[in-house]
């Protein structure tokens, strides 16, 4: 593991240096937007780096470290990049001074609230990352199955499995590889969601600043959004929704700034901002296709902001500024913009092009049905796009509004997960803001448009509000607006508001301490094990016992055959250190016991793993019957069958 850390540090230094140089070349004249651009690049650059390595089949720690070292050497050899890296220290000093003056300008109460929130969040995230292995349905089924298989193979590829969703766009999974490849262990894989969480909260702050909210009000909005249960749950639950929320909010911030602001600091322009906006859209497209739906909301908000700004915005000068920058190439703009867009284009298009080339359907395994007519055939289910679906989603949304149906859990069954702050404080603030503030009105229009378009084509299911975890940012910004417009500077109202805010955000925080899903006994069981031995298969409340039992029998030296259905868990079988190799054993209807045994052996193993609810019932019955006959198959432990020839 120590050597893994060394390799990770070298590759990490390279990635950070590239992110810094690109951020420098693409920066704008607003500190909050520059912070967004830098955080965004620290996500995109390693994702593109791993994607290239994965496609080349060199996803190995020391190879990446060697490439990183060579890249760093190249950066130091080129005079301009060497000089810019040397200036980093002075730049960091300037940024530190800026941060200190920003901090000093905030009200004292808000400073205390921020410091306490940061300390508690850091403690909560650290504890949950280390205490629990991955456990959510999506992750154990397909997100992390991809990660495990790619790490074992050293290549980003598809593989033979009944879980068709491994074909879905997977930029988040590529980024998650960064947190496990070098350690060859998933002990900190949940950290992969934290950069997105940071980006989302920073984007809320930037939106506030862009819409003329003060520093304090914008920070309050960011804190309000940071406490959203649905976001907190998804961040460390190895899901890809936080990065989608973050990219949506970041694009909103960048575009709003272009729409409303006409003045730019002398010597600066916003050409880089446009490039980053395009790259963010492409990164989102390669993560989840529903960015296409969200784009409608973005455009609505941008256009309304432009109109509200009274045609003062300076975006008409953008094409000229872009051309000028491309010609002049200040700070390597051409290189940074070109490399960024090339990487983003790869990340945004690869999954769709691969699926189209291999299966004929870019959205495989999903199809598309418009008003009931199949436009693209599906392997699993067609994504509907019709009024009936819209109305069904709207009805489900109204039933879930207020989280009345049940407690908020990681997959958000029958709930929105927006929490105490968004509902309790956010809704009244939104009503006030809609009446009093143009900025809140345009945000409401944009957010509502995005949500309603999503309702047209998101299949109506108990869990689909996870696609809308960006929505509470609207209430958070309304809270910031109400704070500035109503409470700030008035002693008693601001004290009463502060008390309510602390109570509501504290209630959000408390609810999420255990993801609202794990008993103290589950934590005790996990904490009794060393961190490196905490396996998903050991989480009995989430994963059937059969998984743990099978891993106790089959050693990492042996390949394990499995048969699960399209929604079955696979990830726990790989083990936390990815040492267990798996092979899918298909069992067609009409199979005999001897035929199953032959199929198992033909795949280079003696073992076949199955589990109730994760394997078809008729296969479980058939295997049970084979084991009773004791002819060629024996049940070694529950769920694990072994071929035994007489």
């Amino acid at each position, binding site marked *: 593991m120590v050597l893994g850390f060394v390799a990770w540090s070298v590759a990490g230094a390279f990635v950070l240096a590239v992110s810094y140089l690109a951020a420098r070349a693409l920066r704008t004249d607003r500190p909050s937007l520059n912070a967004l651009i830098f955080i965004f690049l620290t996500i995109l650059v390693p994702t593109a780096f791993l994607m290239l390595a994965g496609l080349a089949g060199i996803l190995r720690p020391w190879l990446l470290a060697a490439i990183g070292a060579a890249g760093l050497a190249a950066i130091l050899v080129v005079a301009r990049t060497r000089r810019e890296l040397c200036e980093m220290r002075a730049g960091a000093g300037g940024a530190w001074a800026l941060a200190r003056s920003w901090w000093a300008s905030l009200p004292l109460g808000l400073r205390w609230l921020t410091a306490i929130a940061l300390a508690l969040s850091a403690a909560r995230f650290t504890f949950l990352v280390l205490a629990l292995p991955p456990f959510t349905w999506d992750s154990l089924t397909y997100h992390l199955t991809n990660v495990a298989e790619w790490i074992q193979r050293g290549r980003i590829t598809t593989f033979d499995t009944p879980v068709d969703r491994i074909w879905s766009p997977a930029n988040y999974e590529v980024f998650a590889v960064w947190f496990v490849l070098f350690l060859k262990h998933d002990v900190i894989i949940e950290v992969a969601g934290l950069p997105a969480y940071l980006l989302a909260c920073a984007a809320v702050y930037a939106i506030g600043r862009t819409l003329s909210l003060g520093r304090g009000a914008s920070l309050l909005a960011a804190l309000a959004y940071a406490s959203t249960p649905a976001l907190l749950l998804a961040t460390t639950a190895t899901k890809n929704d936080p990065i989608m929320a973050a990219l949506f909010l970041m694009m909103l911030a960048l575009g709003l700034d272009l729409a409303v602001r006409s003045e730019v600091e002398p010597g600066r322009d916003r050409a880089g901002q446009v490039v980053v906006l395009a790259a963010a859209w492409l990164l989102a497209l390669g993560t989840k296709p529903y960015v296409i739906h969200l784009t409608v909301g973005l455009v609505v908000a941008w256009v309304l902001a432009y109109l509200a700004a009274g045609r003062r915005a300076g975006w008409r000068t953008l094409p000229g500024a872009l051309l000028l920058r491309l010609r002049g190439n200040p700070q390597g703009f051409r290189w940074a913009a070109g490399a960024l867009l090339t990487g983003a284009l790869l990340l945004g298009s690869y999954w769709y092009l691969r699926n189209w080339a291999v299966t004929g359907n870019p959205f495989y395994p999903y199809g598309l049905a418009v008003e009931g007519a199949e436009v693209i055939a599906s392997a699993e289910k067609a994504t509907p796009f019709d009024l009936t679906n819209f109305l069904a989603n709207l009805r489900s949304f109204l039933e879930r509004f207020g989280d009345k149906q049940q407690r908020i859990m990681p997959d958000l069954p029958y709930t929105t997960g927006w929490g*105490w702050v968004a509902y*309790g404080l956010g809704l*009244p603030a939104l009503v006030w803001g809609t009446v009093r503030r143009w900025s809140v009105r345009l945000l409401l229009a944009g957010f509502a448009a995005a949500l309603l378009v999503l309702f047209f084509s998101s299949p109506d299911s108990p869990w689909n509000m996870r696609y809308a975890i960006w929505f509470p940012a609207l209430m958070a910004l309304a809270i910031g607006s109400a704070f500035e417009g109503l409470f700030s500077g008035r002693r008693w109202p601001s004290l009463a*508001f502060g008390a309510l805010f602390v109570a509501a955000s504290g209630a959000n925080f408390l609810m999420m301490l255990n993801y*609202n899903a794990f*008993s103290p006994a589950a934590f005790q069981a996990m904490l009794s094990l060393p961190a490196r031995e905490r396996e998903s298969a050991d989480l009995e409340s989430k994963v059937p016992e059969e998984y743990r039992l099978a891993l106790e029998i089959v050693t990492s030296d042996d390949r394990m055959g499995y048969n699960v259905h399209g929604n079955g868990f696979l990830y726990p079988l790989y083990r936390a250190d990815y040492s267990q190799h798996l092979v899918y054993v298909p069992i067609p209807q009409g199979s005999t016991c001897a035929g199953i045994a032959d199929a198992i052996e033909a795949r280079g193993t003696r073992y076949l793993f199955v589990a109730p609810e994760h394997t078809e019932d008729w296969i479980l019955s058939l295997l049970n019957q084979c084991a009773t006959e004791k002819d060629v198959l024996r049940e070694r432990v529950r769920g694990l069958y072994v071929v035994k020839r007489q």
Partner: protein
Amino acid sequence: MSSSGSRALEAWLVLVGMLAGTAWYAWPQLGHTIQLLRSLIQLLFPFALE
């Protein structure tokens, strides 16, 4: 009413709305949170609830 007076009234009205909104949201989420707190106390201080 003066402009500052009406702004103050508006502030208190929104605050009352926030209080009502929080009370509305409390059911049933508060019950789950209290249950969680009890579990946490059990975990941290097992002797307290014996």
